């Protein structure tokens, strides 16, 4: 009973987050002059592009009950590979392919360690976090590569024509549609949710849980590779400490968007709302000229709210139900 209730609360959570997002937008546009100005909206989108891209794949992973803390390190490693191979004379298209391939390979390795060797994903990806970041460090050292073809760096940070739409946004939307449809409209998505609800039952229902999880880990690695490419071009730099700490932002955005850390529950639009909420609040704080350092605290509080709120709402509802029964 109680589990069902929590489940229900979690299900309606993404709607609540969407409402909260709209509320933030309304509040922010009243309290600041240029929150909804085209430059600022464009900033909100482009600042959250890597988080969004990694979030698309991370949803699947968290729904299956696993986690990957190494995504930001994969981002750094693919960014380092992009810079290193381009500086070594490879054509840019090849470097981009290498970067994405490295990301995919890292994701596959994580999946292999977790499923085939049966190691806990939390522990292993903490190790992988240090490992991949360390390899990026080993390859680039303190060097930075910032000579990239203008075509690509323009793509990274410029907008389409005179509109506010960042040039990277169409790519993000395509990925979002792909993963959204994959989660909500295909057998693959149903299987993901089934595994999260009960891995045992999923296995007895004939789902190849091991293979499924490896695929999801590999997706996450691939998307982190893509995020690495976009990050590199957005800032026109490849260096080893690119995107440090981003994994926590991605996870908190997912949880904020109603994905349950216990697995089995989550929607794609909830995650999109979660990412945009975090990035909008950040932008709002910046425009209010609130010390940038408060953002770290706000992220932490949002994360705590996202796990505590469903539990508290459920407790409150149950207490009310018992009171009603007695009365």
């Amino acid at each position: 009973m109680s589990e069902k209730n929590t489940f229900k609360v979690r299900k309606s959570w993404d709607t609540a987050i969407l409402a909260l997002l709209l509320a933030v937008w309304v509040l922010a546009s009243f309290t600041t002059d240029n929150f909804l100005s085209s430059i600022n909206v464009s900033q909100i989108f482009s600042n959250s592009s890597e988080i969004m891209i990694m979030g698309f794949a991370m949803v699947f992973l968290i729904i299956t009950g696993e986690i990957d803390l190494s995504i930001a390190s994969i981002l750094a490693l693919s960014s380092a590979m992009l810079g290193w191979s381009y500086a070594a004379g490879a054509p840019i298209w090849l470097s981009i392919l290498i970067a994405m391939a490295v990301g995919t390979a890292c994701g596959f390795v994580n999946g292999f360690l977790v499923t085939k060797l049966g190691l806990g994903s939390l522990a292993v990806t903490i190790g992988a976090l240090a490992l991949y970041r360390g390899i990026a460090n080993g390859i680039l050292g303190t060097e930075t590569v910032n000579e990239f073809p203008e075509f690509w760096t323009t793509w990274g940070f410029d907008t389409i024509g005179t509109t506010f739409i960042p040039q990277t946004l169409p790519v993000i939307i395509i990925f979002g549609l792909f993963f959204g449809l994959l989660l909500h409209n295909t057998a693959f998505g149903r299987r993901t949710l089934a595994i999260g609800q009960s891995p045992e039952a999923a296995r007895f229902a004939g789902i190849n849980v091991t293979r499924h999880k490896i695929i999801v880990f590999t997706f996450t690695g691939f998307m982190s590779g893509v995020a690495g490419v976009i990050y590199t071009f957005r800032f026109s730099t490849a260096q080893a400490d690119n995107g440090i700490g981003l994994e926590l932002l991605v996870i908190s955005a997912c949880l904020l968007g109603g994905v349950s850390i216990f697995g089995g529950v989550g929607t794609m639009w909830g995650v999109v709302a979660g990412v945009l909420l975090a990035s909008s609040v950040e932008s709002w704080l910046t425009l209010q000229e609130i010390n940038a350092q408060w953002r770290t605290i706000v992220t932490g509080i949002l994360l705590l709210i996202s796990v505590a709120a469903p539990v508290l709402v459920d407790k409150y509802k149950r207490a009310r139900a018992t009171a009603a029964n007695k009365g």
Partner: protein
Amino acid sequence: MASLFKKRVFGREASLGVILIFSIGITGFINPRFVTGDGTRDLLSATAIVALLAIGMAPVMIMRHIDLSIASTVGFSAWLVADFCAKNPSFTWVQCFLIGGAVGIAVGVINGLLVAGLRLPSLVVTLGTLYIVRGGVYVVSNSVDYNAQEMPPSLLSLGQRTFAGLLPFPFLMVLILMVIVGWYMKYTKAGRDCYAIGSNPPAADLVGLKVFRRTFLAYIFCGFIAGISGVFYLMRFAQVDSTAFYGQELAVVAAAVIGGIGLLGGAGTAVGVVIGALLVQTIQGALAALGVDAFWKSAINGLLLIVAIYADRILARRTEKALLAQRIKERV
């Protein structure tokens, strides 16, 4: 069964110890300075903070929880202590430890209430407090740094003191804490409860163990040690800024896991954890002696951690099999 359990636990520390001596031997062979008095003192004082934190985290991890906020707490405590000392030149090391401990306990209470009270997943909660506490350092510090001249001389001289020619003061504290925690976890009811809770949390609830109290107190202890470690941070580095000890929580988790505390809880000892921390530091020293670029340090740490987790997994499987075989034999 009891003897088998004992054998496994003892076996773990013994084999870790052998690996440690072996790696110290190899490192000493490549770089003779490593095994001299100076080298030993360096090794011990470099290990002290991580070892302290890993001992503090041991009860939490034994109960199948985790505390990722410790590194932020170390930074917060170190900065606040330095700030208080800069404003009150009369402070000595006593006040430093009082302030540091209080800061740590405050963070521990928050974590404990959320994890033990509301039963929220500890990973997410402490990830949240990691942010909040680090954000707190950023906000209060306002980019102000402190150096040795603002710190009480009594604190810095305490950090310099060595015992028996080899034992730096911080590491002496590690040893004392190791003995206390090791004894407590092994011989008191509360300590045994922790192992029981970690082995099977739902069962611990059903048999009526005080899960809330044990978990809550473990988080307070962990926070307290993190706060104290902030003072040891000042002792060692004699300077602090808002990014002090950033991201080091993973090094602590690594030391604990390598030292035999499984992430699934219910196993591990304080002695193992200290050996684990020493081992990580020794291997770093060995790599430096071999002339491996410092840039690869983190990669090798990560690889070590993954190997340790894998070794742990194999050991656990073997024990499981042995237990099963024994049970079958007893039936027959």
